[in-house]
C-alpha cells in the first residue's frame, strides 16, 4: 500500500480510494461531475446517495476507468490511475451493475461465476469452495445449471452479486445492485456485506436510495448537481431534513414515525421494533 495517499482526517487506515479535483462530462458544456475531492480509508463502508441523474454511477465508473475522467487525479489501492495501471486497479475492484444482464457472459450460472475465478488462476478446489459458499449464501445453489436467460430479475441480480463477491475483490462497489430484491433478500445481502466488512479486508461502496441500506453504512457521500453536497454519518443525514430533501431521500419508516409523533407532542426514541414503540406508548405519560 502506498502510504502517500494516507488521509489523516479519515483515521489511521490508509486511503484505498482518493480523488483530487476530479471532473467528468460527456460534453464540456454540461459537466456531470465537477471538482470531486474525496478520500476513502481501507475497510470503510460508504453509501453514495443523491437524486436520479446526479452522477452517482458516473463517479464509480471513473474509479476503474470504465469512463475516462476529464480532469483530476484518481488513485485506487495505491495505484495512480493511468493507462498502465488500469489492469491492476480493475483487479482490486468488483463492481455489480444496476442491470445484471450487462455482466453475464457464461452459458450457465456456474460458468458465469467460475469465469471470474478462472481469470484469477485459482486452484480447482478453491474455485469449487468459493462457488459453493457464495451460491449458498445467496440462495442460488439450485440454479447452477440454468442459462441466465431462464432466471427472473431478482435471481439474476443474486447471480451477478455472487460472481463478484466470489472473486473477493478488495473494493466492492454495488450500483443499486439490490434494487430488485425483496426486503428479506436485501437484509440477507446486508448481512453478508456486514460479515465481509467485519473480516476487515473489504472496502464497500454502495450506491443506494434505500434508507435501511444507508443506515447500515459508516459514512454517506451525498452528491448533488455533480458535486459532493455532504459528507456525513447516516444519523446526521437522517436528522437533516434539508439535506434529505436535496438528495431526494426519505428517512427510514421508524425515523418517520418518531418524527411524526414528536411533531404531535409525543417524544419517543427511534423504535427498534414495533413492540418497543407500542409498549412505550402504552405506558406513555405526558407529565414526564
Amino acid at each position, binding site marked *: 500500500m502506498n502510504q502517500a495517499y494516507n488521509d489523516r482526517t479519515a483515521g489511521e487506515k490508509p486511503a484505498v480510494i482518493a480523488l483530487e479535483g476530479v471532473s467528468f462530462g460527456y460534453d464540456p458544456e454540461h459537466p456531470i461531475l465537477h471538482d470531486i475531492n474525496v478520500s476513502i480509508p481501507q475497510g470503510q463502508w460508504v453509501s453514495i446517495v443523491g437524486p436520479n441523474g446526479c452522477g452517482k454511477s458516473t463517479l464509480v465508473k471513473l474509479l476503474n476507468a470504465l469512463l475516462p475522467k476529464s480532469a483530476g487525479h484518481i488513485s485506487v489501492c495505491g495505484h495512480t490511475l493511468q493507462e498502465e495501471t488500469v489492469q491492476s486497479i480493475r483487479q482490486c475492484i468488483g463492481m455489480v451493475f444496476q*442491470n445484471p444482464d450487462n455482466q453475464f457472459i457464461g452459458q450457465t450460472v456456474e460458468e458465469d461465476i467460475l469465469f471470474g475465478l478462472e481469470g484469477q488462476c485459482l486452484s480447482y478446489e478453491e474455485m469449487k469452495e468459493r462457488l459453493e459458499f457464495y451460491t449458498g449464501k445467496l440462495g442460488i445453489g439450485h440454479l447452477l445449471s440454468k442459462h441466465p436467460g431462464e432466471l*427472473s430479475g431478482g435471481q439474476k441480480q443474486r447471480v451477478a452479486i455472487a460472481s463478484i463477491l466470489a472473486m473477493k475483490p478488495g473494493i466492492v462497489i454495488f450500483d443499486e445492485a439490490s434494487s430488485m430484491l*425483496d426486503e428479506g433478500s436485501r437484509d440477507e445481502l446486508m448481512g453478508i456485506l456486514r460479515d465481509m466488512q467485519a473480516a476487515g479486508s473489504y472496502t464497500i461502496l454502495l450506491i443506494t436510495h434505500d434508507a435501511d441500506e444507508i443506515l447500515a453504512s459508516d459514512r454517506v457521500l451525498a452528491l448533488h448537481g455533480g458535486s459532493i453536497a455532504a459528507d456525513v454519518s447516516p444519523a446526521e443525514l437522517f436528522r437533516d431534513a434539508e439535506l434529505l430533501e436535496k438528495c431526494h431521500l426519505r428517512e427510514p419508516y421508524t425515523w418517520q*414515525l418518531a418524527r411524526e*409523533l414528536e411533531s404531535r407532542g409525543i417524544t419517543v426514541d427511534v423504535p427498534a421494533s414495533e413492540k418497543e414503540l407500542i409498549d412505550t406508548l402504552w405506558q406513555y405519560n405526558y407529565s414526564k
Partner: protein
Amino acid sequence: MAIQLQQVSYTYADRSMWKQTALHGINLEIAEGSLTGIAGATGSGKSTLLQLFNGILKPTEGTVQVLDVTITAGEKSPRLLPLRRRVGLVFQFPEQQMFEDTVEKDLCFGPLNFGVSLEEAKARARKSMTDMGLDLALLERNPFRLSGGQMRKAAIASVLAMDPDIVVLDEPTATLDPVSRAELIALLERLCREQGRTIIIVTHRMDELLPYADNWVLLKDGELAFQGSGGELAADPAILERCGLRVPQSLRYWQAAAERFGLSGEKPLLTAEGLAGRLAALLEERRTLNASGTEEMGNGHE
C-alpha cells in the same frame, strides 16, 4: 373486468428438454379502473404473469381475457395490435425498451405506430415528460446518455404517451430515488382515480404501494396465493410470510398498534403520518379520560 384469467398456466420452452412451468392454474380478476399491486418472492412468476396481459406471452393452458380480447390456449389468437395500444407495459429494465437516438423519437415511436399525427405525437411526448417530472431539454438527449433513473422515467413516459387504458409496470420504482418514487406512485394513482385507467404494479416495496392499492395479488411458486384488498391483507399478514415475503414495516406497526389499542376493525393506516396521528389522538383521549377521572376521584398523582 379489465383482465380475467381462467385456469391459466404458462410453460417456457414447452415441448423441449428445458421446459419450465412458470404459472400454474391461475384464476384472477382485475376490475376496470382499479389499482392493483402484485407481489411475490423472486422467481414466483410475476414478470411472466404481466406479459400475459398484453399478449406478449400466450397461455399454454386456459383463457386470458383483456378488455374485449380473448386469448385461449391452443386457439388462433385474435389481432393483438389494438390490445397492445390499450395495454401499456413497462419492463423491469427500461434500457430494454429504448432504442431510438433521441428521447423524443423514442416517445413518439409508439403513438406514430398507432396512427397518430407527428404533431400530436410530439405534444403527447412533451406532456408525458412533464407528467414524469422530466426536464423537456432531455427530449434532445440520446436515451442511453440518461442516468438509470432518468431512463426509467423516460421509458414510463413512452408508455404513457400511447394513452393506454391499462398500464402495467414491472417494478417501476426499482432504481428511482425515494422522492421520484413517491411522485410516480402519486401520478399513477391520479391516472387511476381521475382518468379511470387500470393500473397494475409489480413491486418489492409493498410499503410504498400499500396506502394506495385497492387490491393485492400474491404469487407463490407460480400459483395464486392471495387475492384481496389491502385491508384483508392487513388482517392476516402471515400470508405474506407463507409467500416467502417479509411483512412490510408499515403493516407490522399498524398490526401491533391495532392489537394493543383495539383498532382491529378500523381501516388500516399505513403511512407514518396516518399512524402517528391516530396514536397521538388515542393518547390524548386517554389523558383527558384520566384527568377527568382523577378530578372525580380526588386523588391525583404526579
